[in-house]
């Protein structure tokens, strides 16, 4: 019974049916399965299969994103349950992400945010045209260990440096790793402005984030 319900959750993620993922999660809780077991035995293996199918070319971005949304909705149900049991997840990291001031390009930033969330990061997406101070404030508030800055215009790239400088000024620079991206952004630019990493697509961004966070944890 127990494994059957978990298998249903896995299948719902693979099929890309968020409603079924949510239903399955509720049923599993009702059947007395522990939240951590639902995550480890249902959500994580389901997402892993989806990720593998994407890597082999069988699945495409919509499969990935729709399943990730199912996982996110399921987590919204499970997190309060975990809290009630005084359990907590070992999240991959807490990231504050946004497109810098003056820039309204949204798609790439959101794709990176979604992929980070699907890979277990706690993501605070501040949206687009985000004032420099807003990044700093949210890093403080959320105790983030990672900041992601997107810029698509040569005229707004400098905003990435502004955020890095503001983080330094606020005394937060040692606590966070900063990664940057967007069409005009290069590895050299990232180095020049003192960012910790640069990635050119969402998959590379997840790898980068994972590496950067591991580094933070080592240092701490």
């Amino acid at each position: 019974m127990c494994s059957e319900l978990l298998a249903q959750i896995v299948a719902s993620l693979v099929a890309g049916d968020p409603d079924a993922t949510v239903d399955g999660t509720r049923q599993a809780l009702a059947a007395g399965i522990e939240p951590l077991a639902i995550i480890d035995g249902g959500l994580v293996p389901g997402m892993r299969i989806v990720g593998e199918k994407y890597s082999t070319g069988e699945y495409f971005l919509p499969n990935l994103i729709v399943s990730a949304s199912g996982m996110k909705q399921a987590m919204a149900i499970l997190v309060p349950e975990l809290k009630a049991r005084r359990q907590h997840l070992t999240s991959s990291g807490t990231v504050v992400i946004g497109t810098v001031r003056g820039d309204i390009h949204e798609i790439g930033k959101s794709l990176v945010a979604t992929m980070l969330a699907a890979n277990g990061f706690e993501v605070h997406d501040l949206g687009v045209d985000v004032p420099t101070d807003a990044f700093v404030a949210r890093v403080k508030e959320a105790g983030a260990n990672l900041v992601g800055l997107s810029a698509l215009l040569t005229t707004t790239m400098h905003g990435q440096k502004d955020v890095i400088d503001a983080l330094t000024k606020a005394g937060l620079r040692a606590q966070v790793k900063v990664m940057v991206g967007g069409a005009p952004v290069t590895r050299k630019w990232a180095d020049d402005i003192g960012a910790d990493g640069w990635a050119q697509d969402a998959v590379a961004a997840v790898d980068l984030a994972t590496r950067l966070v591991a580094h933070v944890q080592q240092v701490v």
Partner: protein
Amino acid sequence: MRPTLRMLSESLVEQIIAEGMALLRDPGVRVHNEEARRLLAEAGADVDAVRLIARIPETIVRQALETTAHEFDLFTLDGRPAVHYGGDEVHFDPGSAALSILDPETNRQRVPLTADFVRLVKLVEQLPQIDAQSTAMVCGDVVPEIGDLYRLYLALNYIRKPIVTGAFRTDTWWTMKEMLVAVAGGEAALAARPIAVFDVCPSPPLLWSDLTCQNLIDCARAGIPAELVSMPLAGATAPVTLAAAVVQHTAECLSGIVIGQLARPGARVVWGGSPAAFDMREGTTPMGDVATWMIDCAYAQVGKRLGLPTHAYLGMSDAKIIDAQCGMESAGGTLLGALAGINMISGAGMMDFESCQSLEKLVIDAEIIGMAKRLVRGIEPRDEPIALSLFRKLGHRADYLAEPHTLKWFRKELYLPSPVIDRATTDGWLRKGATTAAERAAERVGSLVASYQPSPVPPELRAELRAITTRAARKFGMTALPPLPDFERV
């Protein structure tokens, strides 16, 4: 007969227009520009001042469609009409605002510099197939804050052809206008004989950002044509069904027409765009995709039904080097856009989505454009009867090379390519160095740039342009501009 491409049935066009109008009422369009919201509210739209949404009734849209310009010309800097926006006339300009240039030496992208931009501008002047210039690259040797206006400054020193441009900020638009006014000889002269058109992009879905909306209003007021570059990205910022993406495009462009007409009735606003079918594997915006081209041709048909001048980004490639993919994608979009009768087709020379310009690709694209222009001139009878008199004369002899009739017509009937296109025998090709198209293109870039003759810009005007640009650069901490190639010493 001009061969034409129709993507949509008449009833589908009607339905798309009706649904586009309906979207403007519900859910409405988000307007992040205060002045536009005020204009819309005054005109009777229902404006939600908190959520910044305007719900625009059809009567306002219909009114705007009455007053908006249905055709207009762009002029050369010496005052001749060169580009006709309207009807099925087709013109081409290079893709705009590239972040990089493909270096022919390394075959890799790098940051464009002043000298690169000037070379590109000279090349465009010398390519007869290309009708207009564009501010095609952003130079890395000036402060980024003047990246947009610096391109226009450089171009105006060298060009005769009209130019497609755009601003990256609201304040820089004014500097760009000041330059255009100086070149045209006054505001009235610029409005009467526009030499430039500004691209303004609504944000998908259904949003006017403060910046682009202000650019649109300022253009309308100054009598400078604006080109709406609506870019539904099917499957990402727009529905994946192509017809629905065209509905979104219709609503975004209609709202642009309305805002332009409220700013100044009669304003010249072009029904344009740069949509893409989102790539579901890489998460990129492919310009070389067949669905991208289909959305372009379909929305152009909608614009034509509304009697409006049209524009599209076509003829680009997503390839990173000049290879088979590059040629295939560039040809596909160019030919379809021409058949769809799109008035201004931007994109020549551009690759890697909309990131990179290549002078060598531009020269190859010019050949594609030459062929596309030939294609849309269609097949005409030329003689009456078409062939009978010739056959009476020649019978079964294959002597047409010797016929005066051939001499009379071959230049009109055939497209005569430059040496970029290889049509030699194998032996001839081997003897000429067994080159690739890209290698031949590189050679042609060199010879065309060398053949460029300076434009007749008087020294006082050159000085004025420099003063305007220097003032703008100073605001951002840059005291001296890079020297102007050919005119100022390095």
